[in-house]
């Protein structure tokens, strides 16, 4: 049935985006202020970008990307340990423009947190 779903999505013209959690191994990545997050590079060029955030506890991270019209264009779920982490976004199917991003944290031990909505520019 999963194949049927994929077939329907592809035949309807909806591209799929794959992403993966990345270790925060890059020393240059800045720790965002409490309750916030950001995307780098900014402007996002080269077809990919990373969302950087801090998890107080281990849990699931959900990254929602909206276009200017408020339409959802990407929905990402990622399991991450506590600490400074990042989630990669494949922007190869994004068109040039301004986007809004929401990051929702769901902690394994219970509780949730929504980080401040931020905007970023994609220039593929």
């Amino acid at each position, binding site marked *: 049935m999963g194949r049927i779903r994929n077939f329907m999505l592809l035949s309807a013209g909806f591209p799929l985006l794959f992403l993966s959690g990345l270790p925060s191994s890059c020393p240059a990545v800045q720790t965002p202020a409490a309750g916030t997050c950001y995307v780098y590079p*900014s402007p996002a060029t080269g077809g990919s970008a990373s969302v950087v955030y801090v998890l107080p506890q281990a849990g699931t991270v959900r990254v929602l990307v909206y276009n200017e019209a408020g339409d959802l264009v990407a929905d990402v779920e990622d399991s991450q340990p506590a600490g400074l982490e990042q989630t990669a976004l494949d922007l190869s199917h994004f068109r040039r423009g301004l986007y809004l991003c929401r990051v929702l944290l769901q902690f394994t031990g219970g509780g949730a947190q929504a980080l401040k909505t931020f905007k970023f*520019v994609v220039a593929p």
Partner: protein
Amino acid sequence: MAAFRRAAAAVALAWLLHPAPALPANQTTYTSVYIPSPLENGGHSARAQALGSAFTAVEGDPACLYSNPAGLSGITEPSLSLTHQAWVSDITQDNLQAAFPLKGASVLGLGVNYLGTGPLQGYDASGSPTLSFQPSRISLTLGWGVRLFPALAVGLSARGFYQSLAPALDGFASSLAAGFLWKILPGLSAGGFYSFLESDASPELGQLKGGLSYQLHLFGGSPALLTADLALPPQGVYQVECGAEQLLFGALTLRLGNQWDLKDNQIGGFRGFTMGAGFRWGDLDLDASFAPDGDLGSSQMAGLTWWFPSESKKPAASAAHSLPAVNFAPPSQISANDKAVHVEMQFNLAGKGTKAGPAAPAPSSPQLAQDLQAQARKVQENPKDAPAWQTLGSLYWRAGQPDFAVQCFQEALQLRPDNGPLKDWLEQYRRLHPPPSKAGE
């Protein structure tokens, strides 16, 4: 051949039903693509936003330049509008637009829009902070609406964009749009609008909308305006939009609206509901609107429209959409001492095509008297000019001569029986001021 088809179908079915490999847990699924300049398509008007952006079948408002240029045809007076919008994440829009009625029942619209996103922090590929930058977009729109037939108007518009996303990341784009407005029945209109964008986006990334508007008498005074639209952005989130507005006390207009996404857009919180108000102060309209967008934030708009002072005032389809002209009270506010006399034309307009009678008493204001004389000459020169009759009626009304005003309005209605707002107004007037024969019963 049939066996081959059956075999192919079996293979296809087997492929579809075969268990697919598990997708990565962090897979992202696109549910729509980027729609260029969606904010600019929002209407640039606090009135439009308060009505849930259901504005496709509305006429007589300068904001029709963006929602459906055919609606420009309902504008009878020049106007200048300035609107400011504050959206989520410090994104703002400012819009300046003007409407110029031309000869031949056509109206020209012009709009300049600036969208600013506020500053964005730059980061390089390694995540190190760089210089901040400030994306922006400016557009120039030119539109034209014309009434082809009494019940049908069409409109065209063209827009050019210049967008600067970041240093060395800028470019131009352009779009074309066409719309129609069809008065199906008195008070009931249907509109359609399609825009086509020419840029690095695909041609199918246009904007398609259809809608209805209806004037409904809920209270004794002006009718309420009800609107409903179906927005069909290709590959975007389809929406049903609706709105309602009611003029109260001759100057205050209250508006409500709603927008329903026809797909779960994963935005929590309170959203979809829109509200706003308009206030008329002389030749100025002040409008404000508020549209919460759930967890994303909210949008607020404030607008100021100046209707150029002239002998004829604001069009019927604006905030006081039920009245044939501005600056005179609705029937409910007419003094009980006013007489409604249903007689032949009485005012003295010597000349061909006019009916002679005793002259109307001179108005108190010298300027108004001059305007009356000038407008009477216009009617004299072209007795078949319905708008001229309506303007003359408006002037008589302002001069405190309702009998003559009503007669002018009747003349205008005879020439243009499709003028729904004027017809409604006259009906209200007659209800409140029945002819003497009926009043004496």
